[in-house]
């Protein structure tokens, strides 16, 4: 037990260092596809001054947009001296583009005053473009110098996202590592989750009372991962229900969920050796409309009086309507969702609630398969990474605030920059 914890912590620290390193390296490697332009290479255009317009802006960098799918050039400029100060008459900037410095320039867009960046997302890859930006006011407009040629191109790797990739890899690899580890017969300790302990009892109760079990997989479609979680739990529960020979009623609000759930339940019944007991009618579609669905589910509840209700998936406002109605008919209710806003209602009105992450862990718990359980341990590594990063960075920032040291602050900011999503 003790050794293993150490392993996890070490892994966490290694992870933290590992994600930091590639970023350190990435800092020094400019994007090879980018064409940086400094002011030296910008031709000066001095014959188009408009006396009445504002002072011109100064083009700073014109280059291919980084880590994108091409067709995009980024321009940045220094604001016109008359923007926000001076004559303060700039109303905006207009960006012009041509395929040769002498060519016919056409407008590709405008930016509001105070803005110093523009992304031209309408370029054709491989074509060389020349740009200038014109500061305009009611009186007229003043162009900047024309930039040197720039070409847009798509990149094969989104360098801006390198840290996401590394962090993702570490978490995924630790999950995979523990899956394999568990498969080799390694036993893990897993804490109890009250809602899951109660599943068998809840199904048994319905059997004794001779009343049906209601299963609600949320109101979202299969493109929500919570629905997928709900359906995988259904697969485990259906097996028990088939064994107990209890009636299952599953109204759904999405047709694809209906198809998937039927497939899942059918196979559970086959596995239980009771394929004859399965019927497509166990799962029926009502409507895609959230409240139409809940109106009908409420009707089913008060008329059929299920002994047990499962609510596992993605829920919105309907959660409380269902849970309160279920409560009024005296059903045992087990809920689970990763919708933070609905958790309080389930906690208040249901007997057991799987909170957030527990929903995704539930199918692994119920399966009892070592490899599934192993993945849960992998998740814990993720939590350790989270805690270590928060600890280190809060520590650095606090230290910087107390000592007033700019170096520590700098270090903290750099690290924080690496651990950021965009």
């Amino acid at each position: 037990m003790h050794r293993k914890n150490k392993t996890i912590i070490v892994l966490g620290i290694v992870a933290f260092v590992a994600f930091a390193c590639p970023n350190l390296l990435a800092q020094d490697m400019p994007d090879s596809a980018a064409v940086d332009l400094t002011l030296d290479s910008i031709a000066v255009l001095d014959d188009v001054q408009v006396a009445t317009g504002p002072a011109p802006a100064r083009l700073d960098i014109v280059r291919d947009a980084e880590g994108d799918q091409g067709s995009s050039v980024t321009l940045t400029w220094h604001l016109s001296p008359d923007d926000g100060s001076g004559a303060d008459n700039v109303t905006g900037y207009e960006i012009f583009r041509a395929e040769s410095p002498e060519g016919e320039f056409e407008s590709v867009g405008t930016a509001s005053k105070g803005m110093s960046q523009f992304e031209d997302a309408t370029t054709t890859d491989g074509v060389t473009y020349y740009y200038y930006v014109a500061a305009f006011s009611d009186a007229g407009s003043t162009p900047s110098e024309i930039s040197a040629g720039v070409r847009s191109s798509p990149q094969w790797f989104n360098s801006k996202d390198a840290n996401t990739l590394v962090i993702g890899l570490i978490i995924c690899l630790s999950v995979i590592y523990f899956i394999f580890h568990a498969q080799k017969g390694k036993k893990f300790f897993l804490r109890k989750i009250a809602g899951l302990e109660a599943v068998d009892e809840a199904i048994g109760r319905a059997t004794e009372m001779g009343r049906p079990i209601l299963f609600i997989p949320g109101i979202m479609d299969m493109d929500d991962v919570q629905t997928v979680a709900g359906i995988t739990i259904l697969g485990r529960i259906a097996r028990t229900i088939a064994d107990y020979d209890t009636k299952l009623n599953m109204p759904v609000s999405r047709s694809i969920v209906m198809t998937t759930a039927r497939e899942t339940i059918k196979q559970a019944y086959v596995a239980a050796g009771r394929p004859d007991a399965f019927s497509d009618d166990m799962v029926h579609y009502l409507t895609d409309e959230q409240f139409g669905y809940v109106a009908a589910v409420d009707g089913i509840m008060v008329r059929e009086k299920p002994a047990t209700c499962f609510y596992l998936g993605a829920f919105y406002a309907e959660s409380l309507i269902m849970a309160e109605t279920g409560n009024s008919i005296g059903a045992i209710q087990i809920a689970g969702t990763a919708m933070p806003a609905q958790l309080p209602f389930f906690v208040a009105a249901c007997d057991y609630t799987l909170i957030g992450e527990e929903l995704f862990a539930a199918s692994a718990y119920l399966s009892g398969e070592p490899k599934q359980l192993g993945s849960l341990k992998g998740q814990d590594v993720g939590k350790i990474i989270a805690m270590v990063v928060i600890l280190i960075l809060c520590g650095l920032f606090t230290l910087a605030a107390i000592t007033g040291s700019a170096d520590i602050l700098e270090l903290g900011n750099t690290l924080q920059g690496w651990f950021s999503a965009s």
Partner: protein
Amino acid sequence: MNGKQAASYVVLAIVIVAFAVSIVLKGLLVTVGAFLTLFIFSFLYKDNPYYKFAEHLFVGVSAAYWMCMGFWGTMVPNLFGKLYPPMVGPVMPALKDNAAEPFMLIPLILGILLLLRLSSSVGWISRWALAFIVGTTAGLNLIRYLRSDFIQQINNTTFSLYATGATGFNLGETLSNIAIFVSVMTGLIYFFFSKEHKGAFGVGARTGIIVLMVTFGASFGYTVMARISLLVGRMQFLFGDWLGMMQ
């Protein structure tokens, strides 16, 4: 039994008369809206035929509503309009000159595979479509959640615990920062699966539960308000638009 039946006929008669009077006084549309509202509210008393009527009507109308929206909003412009634009010319002329996108054959084929579910002999083929759907969900969500809910939420939790304001050290803010720090940490500890909640770890986990309970209580309290405003909207309709009792 007979008395009960008689009572229900009386109620029905009253509803019909009231409905008729309301149509004469207020017009058909407001009347329909008002009565459907009352039918739904009657569920609060108990299940009854009027609620059943509203419920069944709602299911039928809304199922068709979403189908029509799906057909005209997705199927026509995004499938047929992309597969073979001239085909949708008569209904959506704006699209007919677009270039065809042959890749849209993929969803067409997958959609048809899904429909094969209806056949008992090749029904298993629908699993291919399901596999595609679930694979897409898994692939897309993995990175999305990693980015926005994992990395970014951690990033948001990295700050100096020691807070200073215009007048120097700020005790209140410092305490709040420490509270956030401790709460996030203990909240995470609660979710640990592979470690028993004992000893110091157990203290952390129990603190975590307290944090979660405060969170749930706060959300619940906050929500009470939202739920009531929905009722206010309905009451405004009933007493204002329908009965005309509000200024």
